[in-house]
């Protein structure tokens, strides 16, 4: 099913330059991108870059998820903390990672830690906000059940708050996975830490349009793969949730 959608996209990208809808010097047909990709795929540098990107992305995403979930639950579950931190969060959240680049470089130079900082900073908020909304979604009767049996705070988190917030967390994961990937690539591109982004940048400054899009396709496919994985996890972890229940039944 999803294959059909992607095939449609491929067809459009192939046809648009061929029919002159866009100039193929600026957007080459899909086949040219694939040819360039094949060429890239033959180099060790490409695979090395891919690995670097995946590594930086995974590290950043993991840190952001962990911090976002833990802090989200802490802040969300304690109304007082939430009220106290609201304005601070709102202040920090819209500060773009790109504005932080000089500071990141100042702290960590141009190696991957600078990029990691940007990735974590940008991805963290996505998770945090989702968790905050998720925590708020706890059914009052479920919460009272937990309270009446005097569940310890940690048990309440584990058995009531976490499962309720889980659908939100999954969405947060999907959002932050993409943002992390974007910032990883952007960081590599601007700061020059190793990875696919740097390859993209080199292709751009070299005017190698097809190569550039070939790399972009790889980035896009990483995004698609992440989503497939997220959906698979979701089908297992949210088996009880109405959204999965219904679709499993039909």
């Amino acid at each position, binding site marked *: 099913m999803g294959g059909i959608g992607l095939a449609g996209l491929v067809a459009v990208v192939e046809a648009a330059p061929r029919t002159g809808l866009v100039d193929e010097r600026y957007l080459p047909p899909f086949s040219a991108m694939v040819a360039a990709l094949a060429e890239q795929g033959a180099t060790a540098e490409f695979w090395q870059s891919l690995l670097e990107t995946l590594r930086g992305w995974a590290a950043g995403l993991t840190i952001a998820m962990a911090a976002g979930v833990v802090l989200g639950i802490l802040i969300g579950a304690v109304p007082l903390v939430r009220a106290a931190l609201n304005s601070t969060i709102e202040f920090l959240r819209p500060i773009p990672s790109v504005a932080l680049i000089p500071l990141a470089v100042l702290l960590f130079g141009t190696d991957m830690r600078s990029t990691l900082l940007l990735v974590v900073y940008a991805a963290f*908020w996505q998770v945090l906000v989702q968790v905050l909304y998720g925590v708020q979604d706890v059914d009052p009767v479920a919460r009272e059940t937990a309270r009446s049996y005097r569940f310890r705070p940690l048990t309440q988190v584990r058995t009531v708050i976490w499962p309720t917030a889980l659908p939100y967390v999954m969405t947060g994961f999907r959002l932050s996975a993409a943002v992390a990937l974007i910032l990883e690539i952007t960081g590599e591109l601007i700061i020059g830490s190793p990875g696919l982004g740097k390859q993209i940048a080199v292709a751009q400054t070299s005017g190698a349009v097809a190569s550039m899009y070939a790399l972009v396709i790889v980035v896009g496919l990483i995004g698609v793969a992440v989503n497939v994985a997220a959906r698979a996890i979701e089908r297992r972890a949210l088996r009880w949730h109405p959204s999965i229940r219904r679709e499993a039944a039909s």
Partner: protein
Amino acid sequence: MASLDPQGGGVVSAARRILLLLAVPVLLVAAWWTATADSTNFFWPPLSQIAGTFGETWFTGRFADDVLPSLARLLAGYLVAVALGVGLGTAIGSSPALRGLLEPVLEFFRAIPPPVLVPILMLFAGIGNGMKVLVIVSGCVWPVLLNTVEGVRALDEVLRDTARSYRMRRRSRLIHLVLRGASPQIAAGARQALSIGIILMVISEMFAASNGVGFTIIQFQRSFAIPQMWTGIILLGLIGIALSMIFRWAEARLLRWYTGLRMSQREG
């Protein structure tokens, strides 16, 4: 807790709210202030110096020339993104088949970084305001879209059955069931989109811009006007706070039923 007398309670709780609202920011600003007080680091100027340049940086012409155009583009992009995200998200959330078809394509585009996406957008949208609005849309739409999809999918089955059994027409089912039911989660997405919108407002002004907050910040950054750059970052944060306050006001109105429902049994 419950025995506070109502009049006194109002004053006390208002004072408490203000205290809660300001305590942490005041502490943080104080910490920043003292930590940088004798800073000689070029990139970490004293906060006093930053505060000193704030007014002249932003309120001597730049407000109208840079801040307002940015906010206008942000508003346009944000509204389009929310409309698009809710519309598309409702369709995708209601139809597993459509979701299967479109999701991979959307996920593909979602992973493309703006520095790569923007040149493509420029091929179709030129380099004017339209392009910048489009850049904002291209980033803001995702949290709204994803959350709408999930919110629609998660609708209560009994409510769904109720609507079906009364043969509610497509339109009213959409308005009275689907959108309202998904609205808490849509709000989560719209909230996310707000700050992402501000970020993309900055990013969009890195391309072919000649005015705007983001443009100005980048110019400061490149010309090593570091205190001014910091004022820009602070301005973004303040814009974030202001917009989120507006957002929360609207959200509290639209989701009054939800807060009531969720809180109803915490303290009646």
